[in-house]
């Protein structure tokens, strides 16, 4: 299991080890193991129901796994609360959007800064010194993140009023606001136009280049093949292949999982 330690191997940001999860009798994740090296973009692909979102939920602490380990920088994080895992530098988006529809676009992104800031109830209620500066800082930073996804013009629009594709981009900006070490994107290109999707691909690469490790679930194969350093293929909760995009595309099990085989 352990790799030989060498100065050439990048550190492992996320380690998924033999992770199992079942819902009653249904096995959603069946001993999944893979690493995401620091500074890489790794994609998880697989047919619907393969367990991709369940895996995201386990990594972020939303669901408890039955067995196995999730390691963040070699520290075990499974069993911790989602907000604790977030504070360790993990941020995510959701396949089924989870925007705060009762807030503006800017406010949504500002919530992203929650774990990087600290002012509590009493300090806020009494506007103690420092609160105003922190607020201003969060606001400026949030505007920057919105600019990054090309949404700065919609900052003061209610999040619920945006079209679907733009709501996805707000979720990406909100996750980026946490300035995570590990960014999990759950089908970020779904509902985006070709142009928007291309812009998103550029953005993801840029985020990676700035040092954030990215784990991506995506159905848009051209996007996956274009930007991923490595791809993991899940089917029925088990890993069926792992490798570079080119390797995975040639893999017969992958082709079978996607297209079915003649039996």
């Amino acid at each position, binding site marked *: 299991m352990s790799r030989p330690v060498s100065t050439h191997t990048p550190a492992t940001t996320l380690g998924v080890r033999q992770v199992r999860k079942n819902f009653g009798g249904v096995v959603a994740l069946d001993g999944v193991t893979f690493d995401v090296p620091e500074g890489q973009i790794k994609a998880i692909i697989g047919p619907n129901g393969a367990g991709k979102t369940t895996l995201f939920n386990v990594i972020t602490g939303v669901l408890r796994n039955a067995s196995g380990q999730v390691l963040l920088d070699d520290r075990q994080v499974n069993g911790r609360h989602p907000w604790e895992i977030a504070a360790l530098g993990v941020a995510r988006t959701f396949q089924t959007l989870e925007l705060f529809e009762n807030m503006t676009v800017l406010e949504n992104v500002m919530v992203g800064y929650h774990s990087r800031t600290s002012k509590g109830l009493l300090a806020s209620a009494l506007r103690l010194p420092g609160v105003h500066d922190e*607020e201003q800082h969060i606001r400026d930073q949030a505007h920057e993140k919105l600019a990054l996804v090309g949404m700065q013009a919609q900052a003061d629009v209610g999040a619920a009023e945006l079209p679907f594709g733009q709501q996805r981009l707000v979720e990406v900006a*909100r996750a980026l606001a946490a300035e995570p070490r590990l960014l999990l994107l759950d089908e970020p290109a779904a509902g985006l136009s070709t142009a928007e999707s291309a812009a998103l691909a550029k953005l993801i690469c840029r985020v990676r280049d700035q040092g954030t490790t990215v784990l991506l679930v995506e159905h848009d194969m051209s996007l996956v093949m274009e930007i991923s350093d490595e791809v993991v293929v899940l089917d029925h909760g088990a890993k069926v292949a792992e490798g570079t995009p080119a390797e995975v595309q040639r893999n017969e099990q992958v082709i079978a999982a996607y297209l079915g085989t003649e039996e």
Partner: protein
Amino acid sequence: MRGWRALALFAVVIAALPWLVRNQYYVNVLVFVGINSLLAVGLTLLMGCAGQISLGHAAFYGLGAYASGILTATYKWSPWPAMLVALVFVCAVAWAVGGPVLRLRGHYLAMATLGFGVIVNLVFVQALGLTGGASGLVAIPKLSLAGMRLDTNLRFYYLTWLAVIAALALARNIVNSRVGRALRAIHGSELAANTLGVNTPRFKLQVFVLSAAFAALAGSLRAHFVNFLSPEPFGWHVSVALVVMVVVGGMGNTWGAIVGAAAVTMVQEALRAFRDYDILVFGLLLILAAMFLPGGLTGAVARMRLRRRGAEEGEAA
């Protein structure tokens, strides 16, 4: 900054109001509007901001009132330290109750808080030695402030509304802060809030305790204004009336709490003759507000202003 100008203007209106109505009875009603406003502002933070319902808020109101009343009338404490102890006591109760209860969601949370309210009211009725039971607790002293006895409606009016304005300022600071955003995030999507680092159980508990603290203060003020306590003004129907205030006023807005408190208190006064039936009217108001006034009265005013501005711009074009 616009918010502070509005608050300053509001303070001026409040200061002038008794001189405009010039009637003891109306000033008396306005004191109760103020006490209800304190309750409604706290409940707005819990319901409107964080999206957590409480159908037992009158219990905290009553606990604050009885703690103040018992300490001053029975144990002859001076009122101000008693009020502080009452506040701390109610916060402790809210903290202990909130821990387990706030794990529940939606209807279950409503049922649990309703049950809590009913139990506390039973204690008020049954703990004869402490509360005087149904016949009540008498001889609660008047308040004094800086050597002045607050023994007129007018003086108490100013004290009460000073507390309301302070509560409004605190609430507005919270809503527009990191904590307020975290609370609204819990309302919007607890799942997303969790994964963005919001310790949702802790923030829910904090806002629950804070809203209970506002209720405790309202209770203490009531005790020293009326100088007599019985269990009836702290029953479950009062909890329902508080929810009606918040919903009718407009949940997303701290001003809504004041509007709702004023509207409901006046309806209560108007229906004094039909005491036991006011709950029917409140039920009806709640249904009508839910059907026709999303965002409550303040929301409706905001929409009207938007529409008028839209019409003016249309004419100009």
